[in-house]
């Protein structure tokens, strides 16, 4: 019997970037011989304590119970790509049947995921549109759509004119930067009277995933650019921090904010009108969809355009061929005063 890991050493000529070879990426070859009840699907999150991923766990567990499949959701102790690699490696070593990963950094886990695939473990991802070593990447929508949608909301709030600023968690955060770039692209395309501050540099500030830093930076930005009219923040820490700053400076209503986060955390700000709109997707649904795809692969079922993943927003998925097979649902949530109370997480 061939020991794990040695099978891939022959894949020498798949080109640069360590992209997996074609066979590895054929979902059909991951059909499991085991009983469904013996499957184990490992879900790896960025940070298991965050409200976001606790919500995801709801969806993941729901699927596990419905289908009587063993699901494990684990996250690293630190939101650091290296720690996440360790969690993935350990789950691989323990012989899970499928991995569903929300990468902290897609690039950093390519090799680990390739290793998983080469050992016959089905891999699906979420929030990783450019992940190479994955069978399917499940998205509530594309980064482009998401960024564009945020920009549309901001533009509407700002009356389509004026200066705005963008905040991300870290410049090293790939998804955040994608969303930020997409926002800028949409603005340049559609809103000529709007202007990204600082000569259009993306992003305008880093919140370091800290509400407090977001607050400090927002204040500084408002000082440095007195004519600033709008903010977007793609980390869940950003908008609350920005909103606190705007409130303190007495600019509520004069400065618009569109951000990403969870409804409960944003509810007060939305109701007070400090944050104009919250954009997100339901992590529970995304988690459900991820494990659902993983289970379909293990069962040998085909996942294609129009497949129903069994949860709201993913009833009829769209397949986009790009770096990988991206399964895009239609699950954006845009929450404002009118509907924020409909969601509780």
């Amino acid at each position, binding site marked *: 019997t061939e020991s794990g890991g040695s099978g891939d050493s022959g894949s020498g000529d798949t080109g640069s970037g360590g992209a997996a070879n074609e066979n590895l990426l054929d979902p059909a070859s991951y059909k499991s011989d085991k009983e469904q009840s013996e499957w184990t699907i490992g879900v790896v999150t960025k940070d298991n304590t965050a409200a976001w991923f606790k919500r995801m766990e709801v969806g993941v567990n729901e699927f596990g119970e419905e289908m009587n499949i063993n699901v494990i959701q684990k996250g690293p102790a630190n939101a650091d790509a290296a720690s996440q690699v360790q969690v993935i490696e350990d789950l691989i070593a323990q012989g899970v049947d499928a991995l569903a990963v929300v990468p902290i950094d897609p*690039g950093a886990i390519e090799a680990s995921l390739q290793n998983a695939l080469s050992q016959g473990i089905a891999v699906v991802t979420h929030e990783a549109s450019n992940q190479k070593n994955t069978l399917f990447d499940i998205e509530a929508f594309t980064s482009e759509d998401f960024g564009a949608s945020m920009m549309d909301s901001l533009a509407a709030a700002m009356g389509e004119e004026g200066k705005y600023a963008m905040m991300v968690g870290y410049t090293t955060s790939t998804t955040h930067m994608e969303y930020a770039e997409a926002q800028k692209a949409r603005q340049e395309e559609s809103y000529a009277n709007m202007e990204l501050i600082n000569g259009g540099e993306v992003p305008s500030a880093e919140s370091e995933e800290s509400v407090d830093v977001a607050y400090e930076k927002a204040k500084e930005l408002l000082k440095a650019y007195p004519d600033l009219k709008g903010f977007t923040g793609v980390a869940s820490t950003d908008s609350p921090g920005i909103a606190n700053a705007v409130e303190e400076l007495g600019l509520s209503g004069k400065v618009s904010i569109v951000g990403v986060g969870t409804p409960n955390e944003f509810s007060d700000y939305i109701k007070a009108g400090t944050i104009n709109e919250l954009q997100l997707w339901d992590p529970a649904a995304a988690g459900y969809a991820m494990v659902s795809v993983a289970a379909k692969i293990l069962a040998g079922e085909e996942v294609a355009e129009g497949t129903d993943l069994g949860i709201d927003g993913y009833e009829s998925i769209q397949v986009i061929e790009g770096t990988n097979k991206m399964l895009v649902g239609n699950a954006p949530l845009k929450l404002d005063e009118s509907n924020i109370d409909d969601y509780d997480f």
Partner: protein
Amino acid sequence: MKTALKTNEPAAPKTRLSFIKMDGNILRLLIIMLTIFIIASITKPSTFLSVANFLSMEKQMVEYGLMAIGVGIAMIAGGIDLSVVYIANLSAIVAGLFMQKFAVAVSGPEQIFFIVLGILLGVLTGIVCGLFNGFLIAKLRIPAMLATLGTMQLYMGIAIIVTGGSIVSGLPEPFALIGRTNVFGIFTMSFIVYIVIVAIVAYYIGKTKYGLKLYLLGTNEKASKFAGIKNNQIIIRAYMLSGVIAASAGLLSLARINSAKADFGSSFVMLTILIAVLGGINPDGGAGKILGIFLATITVQLMSSYLNMFPEISNFYRDMIWGIALILVLIVNHVLNKKSEAKLMRLTSQ
């Protein structure tokens, strides 16, 4: 110059006693390591005692294991190196960018040439970073903790500047092979490189006059100056060594995960200090062995992988376990060292 004196003291009889002081620690580490191994093997035989698990553990421990050695060397010199993780990242980024630019497009021997050049460039980055740390600490006399705290930000800053914060990936396949090749099916290539580096460094620190001077300097900097040791040179070399080791960790990580990033492994900063101390390095300088760090690294990895086999145990408990282990090890070492000290005293006073 024979200027012997007549004394009534008998000549010292020769017995080797060095084991009393240090090797007790090594022995203890071995026992802890084996205990964890046995417990894990008994409670989780199928998952723990699998080739896949061993390969996975080997891969994981290499990078922070190397960085812990860098930290350990700085600690032996009486300082600390908080910047290792970021030296590793910067080196990997420099090497990665270079290979991306020159080695991906070509093939054959030319490609190998550029890959080797890229590796050398990465190592050089480590040397320069280490040299700068050493310069700040030895020449400018900035306390090591503060100097490396500053350079930690500085090196990360440089890495962010050159990459714009994004990930460097897309490396030539032959290089990535280093990260994936297994020898005899049970050793990863990077683990073998790691073992070789550990062996060289352990020999260098343990057996050469440089190493001896390093320990003496770490014991008493002033006395070492008065003994004609070139303190500055020794300190600078210690941080350079730490830088080179960190760079090799960065390069191995580059090969393994096929990418490099400015803030990769930020959680390793504390872990490396913890491992160095668990391994018996005296944080005040002058004592401890590289072998101890190696054993501590394995111990931590065994424990870590074992814990990951319990899905119900959150990874955050690991922090707690490290903390408790660290303090327990300190206390146990303290009690046992006291005992062996007493033994030594008994031996010296007839």
